[in-house]
């Protein structure tokens, strides 16, 4: 965690859940890797991992793509997102998706008894 002040932190995780149009998962993943990922890395984000659900690509139905990112400092990332016009990428790729949500997470470790 970074920037402690009054109990505050500005580092954390982002979980993107994107419901992809049937048959477009490969194309969408390729666009994420080629277009979104490089700019996200420039903003200080790290792609922790990506997953699909259910755990195989469906033929005629949607898969959900999960992208888990970490970021070291929220406001720096946010400012660069605005400067890079990151929102436009989501709009440009929206024809490949059905819906999406973006969740912000903080680590909450569990210890085994």
């Amino acid at each position: 965690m970074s920037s402690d002040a009054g109990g505050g932190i500005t580092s954390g995780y982002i979980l993107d859940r994107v419901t992809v149009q049937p048959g477009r998962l490969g194309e969408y993943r390729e666009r994420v890797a080629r277009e979104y990922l490089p700019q996200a890395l420039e903003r200080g984000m790290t792609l922790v991992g990506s997953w699909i659900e259910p755990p195989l690509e469906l033929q005629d139905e949607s898969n959900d793509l999960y992208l888990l990112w970490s970021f070291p400092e929220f406001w720096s990332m946010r400012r660069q997102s605005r400067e890079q016009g990151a929102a436009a990428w989501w709009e440009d790729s929206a024809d490949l998706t059905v819906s999406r949500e973006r969740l912000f997470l903080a680590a909450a470790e569990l210890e085994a008894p």
Partner: protein
Amino acid sequence: MIRQVAMLHLREGADGEALEAFEAAMAGAHEALGARRSHLGRHIEGSVGGGDYTWDLLFDEAPEGDAAALVAAAPALAPYFGDGPQGVVAQIDAVRFEPQYGELPEPGIRDFVKRTLFLRVEDGAEAEALARFERELMGMPRYIASIRNWACGRTDPALQATQWTHVWEQEYQSVEGLTVDYMVSPYHWGVVDGWFDMERPQRIVSPLLAHVYCPAASSILGWTEEA
């Protein structure tokens, strides 16, 4: 009671004695306008989108005419808002509203910082999303202790035409309460900011904002409790 909050944008090059005369005249603005209270605060560096001053007024009843007409009809103030040699204010960006939500746990706060945010919820935002946005916005004081007093409300375009839909105001004992505590709170960036962030699908607030803060000697948000 009606509150008017205005952001004043200065003419380019307005400075020195002209501003001193303007600020002196504005100290008596409430008397010149028939208002109960007034306060003029010069913006602190870091303010964005709201010009140079925050001008707060409290009226017992809605005044006649919009903010520009009001000052134009007040001889003690009009020259500073006009095109003449004393003119220093280029634009008045004002909202009016009846006081709505807020809390005043520290009415005696002194020598502090008042922050004002004008924002616009996009046309077409769903009522459920709007209600949740307002609830989460007004939840901030529960998680950010540096917010000593606060007020939040929808603007009333029948009282003053404006592009802004909401006013979110806070009083902090020090500027760090805003620039540090408010900014590093995960409730801010992890909950409330989603309504503002262009990358997040839940966004309903226009990216055009007026975020300003100014020094004040005694509580402005407490006026409505005194009245």
